[in-house]
């Protein structure tokens, strides 16, 4: 296991920011840490990087305890804090050389060059960081985190505030890096997790509410497939309910319904047959994806 967390708790004053979280992350996985703002994502990351200690519980990175072996862990991990803080008065290249100075990097000049190339910063390397756009600053932050070829990368909202093009670039970059490293990234954008991660941890109010592979989570919450259907005439809800294999029926508006079947049933066929039998016409029918977004809302809005 690359990262292990057991009953991790952090209390600020009287507020429980992280409340007894446990999870394991295998080596080489890209894991999304998901949750609404203030759920405890950043706090968890700060504990893993050794910036603040936990109140109780334990966390290990590559078998090293975050409290006792903080310095060794810092050598093994790369960290991109929330909002990507950088020294704006430094030049890109100068900054990376500075960051390399903290680690035992063989041939720092070559490594910096490599990172500049990998993150596509080559053109901007002689600019001051303060002059760069947000997307390029994000790349500097990532380059800085990966300079020493860390085994574990911890990225706190690596894509916040980027435009759609930059978003795609940074995601591709992270995915590329993820082939050889363990990555934990936090976000509150669902598509991001769908696009990049293999596993997802959902945190709400300091508690872990889901810990699954992305595909599995979708299936788990959704049950079977959901179909959005519109009939020509009024339909009784209990009529739809009574059809075989139907789990849930919801009225959207007028004659539009959301119908969820169980895993074995093809709801589309059932509904079509029903319409024919009762002499109604199906005006439209489309499969309604149970997106992570909805799962997220479902899991994090429970009182």
């Amino acid at each position, binding site marked *: 296991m690359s990262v292990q967390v057991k009953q991790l708790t952090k209390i600020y004053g009287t507020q429980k920011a992280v409340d007894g979280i446990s999870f394991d992350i295998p080596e080489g996985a890209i894991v999304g840490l998901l949750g609404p703002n203030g759920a405890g994502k950043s706090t968890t990351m*700060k504990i893993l*990087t*050794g*910036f*603040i*200690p936990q109140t109780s519980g334990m966390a290990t990175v590559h078998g090293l305890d975050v409290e006792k072996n903080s*310095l*060794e862990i*810092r*050598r093994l*991990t790369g*960290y991109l*804090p*929330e*909002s990507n*803080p*950088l*020294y*704006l*008065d*430094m030049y890109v290249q*100068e900054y990376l050389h*500075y*960051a390399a*100075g*903290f*680690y035992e990097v063989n041939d720092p000049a070559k490594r910096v060059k490599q990172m500049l190339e990998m993150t596509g910063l080559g053109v901007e390397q002689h600019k001051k960081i303060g002059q760069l756009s947000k997307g390029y600053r994000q790349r500097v932050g990532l380059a*800085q985190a990966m300079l020493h070829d860390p085994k574990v990368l911890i990225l706190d909202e690596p894509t916040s505030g980027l435009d759609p093009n930059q978003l795609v670039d940074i995601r591709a970059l992270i995915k590329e890096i993820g082939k050889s490293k363990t990555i934990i990234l936090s976000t509150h954008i669902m598509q991001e997790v769908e696009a990049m991660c293999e596993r997802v941890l959902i945190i709400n109010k300091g508690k872990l509410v889901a810990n699954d592979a992305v595909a599995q989570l979708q299936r788990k919450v959704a049950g079977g497939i959901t179909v959005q259907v519109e009939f020509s005439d009024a339909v009784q809800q209990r009529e739809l309910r009574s059809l075989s294999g139907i789990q849930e029926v919801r009225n959207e508006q007028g004659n539009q319904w959301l119908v969820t079947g169980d895993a074995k049933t093809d709801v589309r066929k059932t509904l079509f047959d029903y319409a024919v039998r009762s002499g109604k016409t199906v005006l439209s029918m489309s499969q309604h994806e149970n997106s992570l977004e909805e799962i997220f809302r479902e899991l994090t809005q429970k009182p």
Partner: protein
Amino acid sequence: MFTVFKREISSFLSSLIAYIVIVVFLLVTGLFMWVFPDYSLLDFGYASLDQLFIIGPWVFMFLIPAITMRFFSEEKRTGTIELLFTKPVTDTQIILGKFFAGFALVVFAVLPTLLYAVTLWFLADPVGNIDTGGIIGSYIGLLLLGAVFVSIGLFASALTDNQIVAFILGLFLCFFFYSAFDSIKLFNLPVKVQLVLEQLGISAHFYAMSKGVLDSRDLVYFGSVIALFVALTKTVLESRKW
């Protein structure tokens, strides 16, 4: 530690802070030494550098907190402190890196004033008839005083994320340690208390050194004040862990 030191130095150089500090220090001390009629060495008639060592601490009192004010407050404000403190270095290494960067700047500000001493050597009649011991002692005292001010400024900077607050706090603490103890002792206090208070202030030790006597007590005093403020800085920075 060296990485932090190097970054601070290059930041001094690229942001003009270094040049401004050095120029202002030389300008003010130079004016008092050689130009202003009432104070100038040329009018004074005695071959001594006293003027430099009287003015020096007061100039440092303003300049050093200005150098040190951004050390931690800027990092706190921009959030880079989180990056810095998750690098594989200890808190003490970071603090010392910054401390020595500030001290290096002080050394570079003082260094050119050696020219004053050389000039004095040739001005003296007969040539070379100056209090060399006193001058060397004063220089060491001035550098140690600078180091104390740097450690005070470092502490003030760690307390806040606002540079102005850090500057004013640093200025006040430097002033307090330099001369307030002398003033407090003027109250009608028992002699023993007066003596203790005097020994707590920087100026008593600074003037003791400027006589050219390197007393271990003075060195220990400067060393402990620096250690005290470095330790306080560490405590303040570690308060994030409470």
